[in-house]
């Protein structure tokens, strides 16, 4: 072993002496492959586009192996706990990584792991700040910068862009104010652990492109910018602009991001305290706007957060019942979709002000063996939120102020990592999550998570581990197991059991259920891989065919299966076939329904020019059996259509680089449902049986 390390060391030293070109070129992130391995794509009520956007945000900040904290490493979701510990030990023992090749000398790092890690990891040859250049010069000379321009639209006419005919009472149905083009611009220049500057602007389809400073619209509908510095004196991080904050296990502040249950059963169940992160996305609800700073003082990290932003919501007016002259405004909800297309959406735009103050303190033991932290935060709205009362939302947040207090901790023992967070909200609601991940043998990893979220717990930016999308009204326990039985065979699976003590989505009563997934991956060679996956979820839901006034809870079961084969035929041609299907049924309900989708990919890659194609066919009995198929798209964009009904879908994506500074992407996708008269609903409705989406994107590196 020692010999291997020495050999590697010399290889690196000579490598770097002989030629600078020897540094391993960081491959472009193949997001789709990576994400497919993490996510369990067929979950019923997840907003995948948001999740992907968040994951991308995470990966657009590569980690430097010489500076990465244990949390940074875990946050890649690639490394097992054993690998994290061994990498840290290696760094401690042999000093800084000289090259990414050095990863091979860590015993538990197999080639598969290294290849998976490469797109997200770097080894900086010139350590930050040490090249004596001023910050301004460093920013100007930073090679990691680019501007991206993207335009996309649906070619068919959608209802929202047609002329509205007034109905009998003279009311015109609402239509979109703008054109169907979607525009997106992003500029970013960053250097790991040094600085990050970014500017993002977006106009959604149907939104207007206009300059009207009176309504605070400056061309595009959404603007976001940030300026962040890291490791400057006592400041570990300091940021102005749009940012996110992640603390503990995400019960209060989660940076909007969670992977949770998926095809990767171990590394995704634990959240990492990564603190302040710049925000470069276009989701208009999940960030803070203002400033934040983290100060490092001995083993303490103290963070202060300030934010003021305007949120969308329907502001209503009610007369005070006691004093009739007194008029009170309130919001019935907060809308985070970020669409401002129709008159109603435009009226609700930025109608309510949200102010946030927060502070946290984290103590990290020197060797990184354990850490504890506390967070206190308050969020205040200009107009109180008063929901229309229903049986469901009895315990939801009402009022103009919420406060959270949270404690978190983690402890590493051998190849185990224990973690937990416990939080309370102003109304007395509480939430607790605790778990462990560990390596208990060669290639054998386990995880376990228990959670208990009370029905009256309120936190607007939480995203802790759970079955439901919000951390409320849930108890459960989860087991995960992953076993690399052989370099070619990988077994993974989880079992999760949960209960919802109060009413929940589509369940008008206390309910419970369980879910399990298993996946077997076989990779006979570096260019061929094959997997089979099965997932089963049973939970109590309202009987959909019930006609009595009172809902009846019955066991509702959803099964999903996937078989996929990948092969890289030659250096320039790769193929993939995927067959997936689902079954859905309710006890005492209508007969079982089915869905199936088959897709065939054909990808050509000639280096400077590549072409990806897919043809897929789908046939589902109903919406319950809708099939999600992850599709390749232009860099940093996502496409995960939910296919239901009967039809075909195909796309072609062309990418080429006229020179080293410019990349161009063009994508055309079309769905045809021959036996349908219309596609879509509401203002998105198309009169016809096909829908075509076109995207064009340019990237310029300065």
């Amino acid at each position, binding site marked *: 072993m020692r010999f291997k390390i020495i050999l590697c060391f010399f290889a690196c030293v000579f490598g770097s002496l002989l030629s600078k070109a020897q540094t391993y070129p960081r491959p472009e992130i193949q997001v789709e492959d990576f994400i497919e391995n993490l996510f369990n794509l067929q979950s019923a009520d997840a907003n995948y586009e948001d999740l992907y956007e968040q994951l991308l945000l995470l990966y657009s900040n590569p980690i430097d192996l010489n500076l990465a904290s244990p949390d940074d490493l875990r946050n890649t979701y690639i490394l097992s706990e054993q690998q994290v510990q061994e990498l840290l030990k290696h760094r401690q023992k042999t000093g800084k990584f000289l090259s990414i090749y050095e990863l091979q000398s860590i015993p538990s790092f197999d080639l598969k792991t290294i290849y998976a890690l490469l797109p997200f990891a770097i080894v900086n040859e010139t350590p930050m700040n040490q090249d004596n250049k001023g910050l301004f010069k460093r920013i100007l000379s930073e090679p990691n910068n680019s501007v991206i321009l993207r335009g996309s639209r649906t070619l068919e006419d959608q209802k929202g862009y047609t002329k509205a005919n007034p109905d009998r009472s003279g009311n015109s149905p609402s239509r979109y104010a703008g054109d169907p083009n979607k525009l997106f611009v992003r500029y970013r220049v960053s250097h790991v652990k040094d600085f990050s500057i970014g500017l993002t602007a977006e106009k959604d389809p149907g939104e207007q492109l206009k300059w009207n400073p009176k309504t605070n619209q400056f061309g595009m509908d959404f603007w976001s910018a940030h300026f962040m510095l890291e490791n400057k004196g006592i400041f570990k991080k300091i940021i102005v602009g749009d940012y996110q904050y992640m603390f503990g296990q995400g019960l209060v502040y989660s940076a909007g991001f969670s992977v949770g249950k998926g095809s990767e059963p171990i590394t995704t169940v634990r959240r990492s305290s990564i603190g302040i992160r710049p925000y470069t996305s276009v989701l208009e609800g999940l960030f803070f706007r203002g400033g934040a700073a983290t100060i490092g003082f001995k083993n303490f990290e103290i963070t202060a957060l300030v934010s003021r932003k305007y949120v969308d919501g329907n502001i209503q007016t009610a007369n005070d019942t006691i004093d009739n002259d007194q008029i009170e405004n309130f919001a019935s909800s907060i809308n985070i979709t970020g669409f401002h297309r129709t008159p109603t959406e435009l009226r609700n735009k930025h109608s309510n002000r949200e102010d946030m103050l927060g502070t946290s303190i984290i103590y990290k033991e020197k060797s990184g063996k354990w850490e504890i932290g506390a967070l206190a935060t308050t969020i205040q709205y200009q107009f109180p939120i008063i929901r229309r009362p229903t049986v469901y939302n009895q315990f939801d947040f009402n009022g103009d102020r919420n406060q959270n207090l949270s404690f978190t901790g983690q402890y590493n023992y051998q190849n185990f990592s224990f973690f937990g967070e416990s939080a309370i909200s102003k109304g007395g609601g509480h939430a607790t999550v605790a778990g462990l991940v560990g390596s*208990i*043998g*060669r290639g*054998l990893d*386990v995880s*376990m998570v228990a959670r208990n979220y009370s029905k009256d717990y309120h936190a607007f930016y939480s995203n802790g581990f759970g079955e439901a999308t919000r951390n409320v009204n849930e108890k459960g*326990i989860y*087991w995960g*197991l992953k*076993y690399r*039985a052989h370099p070619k065979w990988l077994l993974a699976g989880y*079992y999760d*059991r949960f*209960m919802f003590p109060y009413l929940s989505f589509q369940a008008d009563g206390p309910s*419970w259920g*369980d879910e399990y997934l298993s996946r077997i991956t076989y990779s006979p060679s570096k260019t061929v891989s094959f997997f089979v996956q099965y997932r089963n979820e049973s939970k109590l839901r309202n009987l959909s065919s019930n006609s009595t006034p009172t809902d009846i809870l019955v066991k509702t079961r959803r099964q999903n299966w996937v078989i996929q084969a990948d092969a890289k035929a030659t250096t320039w041609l790769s193929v993939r076939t995927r067959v997936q299907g689902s079954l859905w049924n309710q006890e005492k309900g209508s007969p079982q329904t089915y869905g199936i989708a088959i897709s065939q990919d054909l990808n050509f890659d000639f280096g400077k020019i590549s072409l990806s194609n897919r043809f897929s066919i789908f046939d589902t009995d109903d919406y319950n059996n809708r099939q999600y198929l992850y599709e390749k798209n232009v860099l940093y964009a996502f496409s995960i259509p939910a296919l239901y009904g009967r039809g075909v879908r195909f796309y072609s994506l062309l990418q080429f680089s006229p020179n080293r500074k410019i990349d161009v992407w063009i994508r055309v996708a079309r769905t045809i449902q021959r036996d349908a008269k219309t596609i879509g609903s509401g203002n998105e409705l198309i009169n016809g049986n096909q829908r075509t989406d076109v995207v064009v994107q340019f990237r310029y590196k300065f």
Partner: protein
Amino acid sequence: MYSDVWAVHNNIGALGWLKQSGVGVSFENRYNLLALNQIAFAGAAVSQKYGVFGLGISRFGSSLFNQSRAGLGWSKSFGIASIGLEGQWYQVAASEFPTQHYFILNFGGLAQLTSKIHFAASIQNLTQTKASTIIDERIPTIVRAGISFTPNQRVKLITEIQKDLDQKSIVKAGIEYEVIKKVWVRTGFSSQIEQVSGGLGCQWRNLTFDYAVANHPQLGWTNSFGINLLLGKSESDQKDDKKAGLKEVK
């Protein structure tokens, strides 16, 4: 170690792998109800020549309703597999009803497929004994089949399917991990009855202690505790002694 004296209650066929005689007692309280207490005794005598003989006694319930069992079994390993047979006396007593006695027959086996994989199966109430002379009600016949996998010396993964002729099948899965020498943690779950459980076991000289807690979403908590006493010395202990002896000599 993939067998202990409790095989006499769970799978008589596994008893044949026992290397060391022993006795054990256990106590279980289900869902914090006094009426659902169970106490049990298990004992096994190992004979190199004739195989392993086991005695199992248990009582479940209170004075108003209780079930008692007493069984005598025999098991022996042949090559990579062992089989066993047990005759059990089974009594059901409910106040104000005449007490019923039955005789049932249990059968089981355990095979070592590879050094890491074991397979076991058992049939409880082979005879499908009638419970009533008036209607065709039978004592439940339960068939169980399971696999254990030992990827390394500290980890054991187990899964089992259990089928009662008149009930839906139950799948159980569990994991045992030796955190430090002679201390085991365990956790597992079962489908259908939707119970989750966790436990701790440790060995001190000839004594082993086991504690388990289980939770059912509606019914609540179940606590179990057991003590086993190993009689005589096992082969591994003898090895340990030899090593210790060597060190002393050095």
